């Protein structure tokens, strides 16, 4: 965070409109819109998938067809028309890039606008980037270096071809296709995503990063991510999202599965910055994501997210603490402005003995937005000495927004200790005045106070993500104090 100066902040503040609103013009290979078994067969065929995966998809589709779209979340939106969605779109050029020079200039330009100039990424940060353009990944770097350590980090399609056994063994084990409406849909139609495998005892030396983008007009995005950390391994995985500005709603229903085997640790960080719709609530991305991890003995999964985008968000990164002494963490900042709606939180399922979970959730509501925390802490009878601490704070910036907290606490073990605290308050006028008295402008004062309020969460992010997250918070809350 040291490199980020107040001047950078000031510059960012000048950019009123959504920074990443543009559409890259790359020819796409599309299939007809709508969904049926033939479409699924087509997707599978185009991707040259093995028979078992097609069966998996078809089974998921049949499950999905009999499901009803859930309505329990504290959000209101026009339901996606599933018949209008194009479920597959891939850039026509199927060729893989051997080196950075092979990538089209147009694509490089796209990445520059995203603020992740790959040259710089490679040179300065040592972050391997798996860039996902719509659904098929088109650029991967640092693969060789990772290969030396036996780390697999590739697109999901590639993994299906190259490491079918690993994929088959783990796919759907944390998020079964029957889990929920959108997980079932994703299981039927997912086109690509990322796959990561860290072998036994290996500590991944660099942050693994995937930048997502939704690019093809009218294309639903169904990402699938699977991270497997074998015994005693460690990985830090970054996920960042931006999307082009456009009017029609875009559905994003990803599934992320994390598997942390005995003594392994996975740190999964997300900065989400998809198009939130305009000031009148028109357009914007629907973000209905299922993210879940499972911890075996002594394993740890840590979810960190900074969410500022999307028109409607529905997201509960969760941990199943199956193994004894396993640890689950959830750190979240969710900002909503204008007409955005977010219903987000986590589930911590304590099964093993001495399992621990921590939930730190910071919600910031501005404009006419609605921001809800929904969380479940469930202690099963087997989870002796389970421990949970939850802190859910909400900050209100205007008198037209809403901040809501819906925690569910279920305990069946007497030795468990569960503490939940939540507060809702207005941004402190005394704090703002104190800053003003030191010569700091109101806008900057608010930015400072908000970033301070979120610090516990921002501190969990890797450095470069933290900087971006700070900027995002400021941009998202611009002119929002009522």
């Amino acid at each position, binding site marked *: 965070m040291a490199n980020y100066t107040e001047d950078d902040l000031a510059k960012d503040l000048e950019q009123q409109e959504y920074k990443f609103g543009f559409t890259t013009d790359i020819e796409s290979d599309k299939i007809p819109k709508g969904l049926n078994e033939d479409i699924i067969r087509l997707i599978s065929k185009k991707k040259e998938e093995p028979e078992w995966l097609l069966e998996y998809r078809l089974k998921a589709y049949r499950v999905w067809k009999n499901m009803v779209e859930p309505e329990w979340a504290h959000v209101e939106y026009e339901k996606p028309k599933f018949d209008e969605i194009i479920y597959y779109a891939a850039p026509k050029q199927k060729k893989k890039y051997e080196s950075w020079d092979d990538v089209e200039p147009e694509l490089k330009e796209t990445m520059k606008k995203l603020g992740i100039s790959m040259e710089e990424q490679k040179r300065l940060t040592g972050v391997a980037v798996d860039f996902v353009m719509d659904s098929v990944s088109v650029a991967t770097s640092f693969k060789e270096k990772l290969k030396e350590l036996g780390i697999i980090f590739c697109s999901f399609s590639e993994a299906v071809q190259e490491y079918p056994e690993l994929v088959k063994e783990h796919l759907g084990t944390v998020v079964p296709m029957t889990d929920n409406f959108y997980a079932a849909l994703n299981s039927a139609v997912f086109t690509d995503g990322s796959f990561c495998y860290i072998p036994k005892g290996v500590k991944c030396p660099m942050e693994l990063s995937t930048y997502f983008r939704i690019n093809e007009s009218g294309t639903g995005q169904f990402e699938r991510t699977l991270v497997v950390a074998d015994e005693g391994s460690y990985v830090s995985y970054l996920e960042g999202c931006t999307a082009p500005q456009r009017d029609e709603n875009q559905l994003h229903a990803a599934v992320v599965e994390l598997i942390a085997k005995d003594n392994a640790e996975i740190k999964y960080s997300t900065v989400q910055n998809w198009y939130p719709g305009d000031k009148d609530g028109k357009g914007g991305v629907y973000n209905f994501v299922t993210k879940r991890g499972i911890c075996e003995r002594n394993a740890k999964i840590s979810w960190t997210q900074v969410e500022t985008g999307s028109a409607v968000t529905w997201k509960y990164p969760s941990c199943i603490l199956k193994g004894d002494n396993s640890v689950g963490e959830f750190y979240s900042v969710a900002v909503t402005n204008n007409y955005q709606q977010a219903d987000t939180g986590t589930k911590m399922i304590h099964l093993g003995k001495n399992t621990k979970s921590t939930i730190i959730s910071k919600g910031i509501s501005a404009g006419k937005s609605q921001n809800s925390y929904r969380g479940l802490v469930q202690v099963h009878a087997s989870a002796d000495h389970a421990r949970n601490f939850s802190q859910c704070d909400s900050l209100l910036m205007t008198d037209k927004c809403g901040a809501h907290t819906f925690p569910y606490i279920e305990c069946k*073990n007497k030795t468990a200790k569960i503490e939940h605290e939540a507060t809702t308050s207005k941004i402190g006028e005394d704090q703002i005045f104190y800053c003003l008295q030191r010569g700091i402008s109101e806008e900057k004062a608010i930015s400072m106070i908000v970033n301070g309020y979120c610090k516990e969460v921002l501190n969990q992010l890797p450095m470069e993500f933290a900087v971006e997250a700070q900027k995002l918070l400021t941009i998202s809350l611009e002119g929002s104090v009522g």
Partner: protein
Amino acid sequence: MTTTTEKKKSDFYQNLTTTEINVDSKDRALAEKVCEQAIIPTTKNEYWKYTRLTKLTKPKYIQQKEEIGDITSFVIDQDAFTLVFVNGFFNEDLSSKNKPSGVEFKILSEKEALPPLQATIEGALFTAINTKYLCDGVELVFKEKNQVKTPVQILHIIKGENTISNFRVLVKNERFSEGQLILGEFSEGGKTKLSNIVVDFKMEEQSKLHVDKIQFEDEETFHISTENIRQKKNSQFTINTITLNGALVRNNLNFEVKGENCESNLNGAYLLKGKQHVDNHTVVDHQVAHCNSNELYKGVIYDKGTAVFNGKVFVRQDAQKINAFQSNGNVLMSDYATVNSKPELEIYADDVKCSHGSTTGQLDEEAVFYLRTRGISEDSARELLIAAFIDEVLDMVQNENIRTFIDKIISARFHQNI
């Protein structure tokens, strides 16, 4: 509150006779409609997520009048003005004769017409049943500018196999009135009974009411309470719900704070044993600015007991300067005890201070050990610590007589394991 998943129709109240009391005609029509649909909420309904009604709805209930000999053991405050109801019907002989001034009461069956109910009937099966099959009840009015120092004590006793008591209390505090009310809910023998009680509190401007509700029914009694409190400006309302026994107890407590500068206090204590199930569902709806609410619920769960707490605080848009505090604490005493706690905040105004907390755990073993090193037996040490835990709520019961009554039951519980 109903969802499409609740298709099951039930006839557990089909043996009941429609009330002859003059309930409000719109209420009656609505109640007829809801009873006709007879949809029993399942746990898929968020409002009943943690409470199964299967057992409760199995018996074919009947309304019946019963006699009772002696009420000594049910009298919570011997100095109070007491009204006794058995199975929802008034028992004049057992009730007090010397009514204090400043308060009036009228038995509902003697009234020409009942006012419309504050509590919602639409989608609320038990309130609908209470309306359609109302046994009887009482209307209580604290008169304008009167400070009634003598507490009014309403004792409700349910008795006899398969009895249902649809009992209703309508309390009105006129402007500038002050009163104290004790609600005692008891039982005397008979299998599978259901107390279905609806209480409306109408708090006019600047009025004040303190309510202590003591629930001490047997393990054969199901209990559904629905209390609706409507507060006008500058009014103060406090209710302490103390649940000491029962099979399945569900308390629905709904505050509608409609006037500025109101104070709403709701506290609860529950001690569960056996397979008891106690579910406290509270809603505090802050509709206007400048009000305070304080909520504290604490429970100790033994054996296979299940405690449910669902507290919701609403702060509506433009209801600025609200301070709302909510807290729920639970201690689990057995390997088979369960707690489900759901403290919720739904806030649509910005200049507010709201917080909630929920803790679940066991007794502090360090503290138990410490007491034992000072020569206190392990049982006594636990008793002391549990008492200390629950006292925070019981201390809100200011009336000494009531406190003595509660303490006696709790103490007996500790010593004879009743």
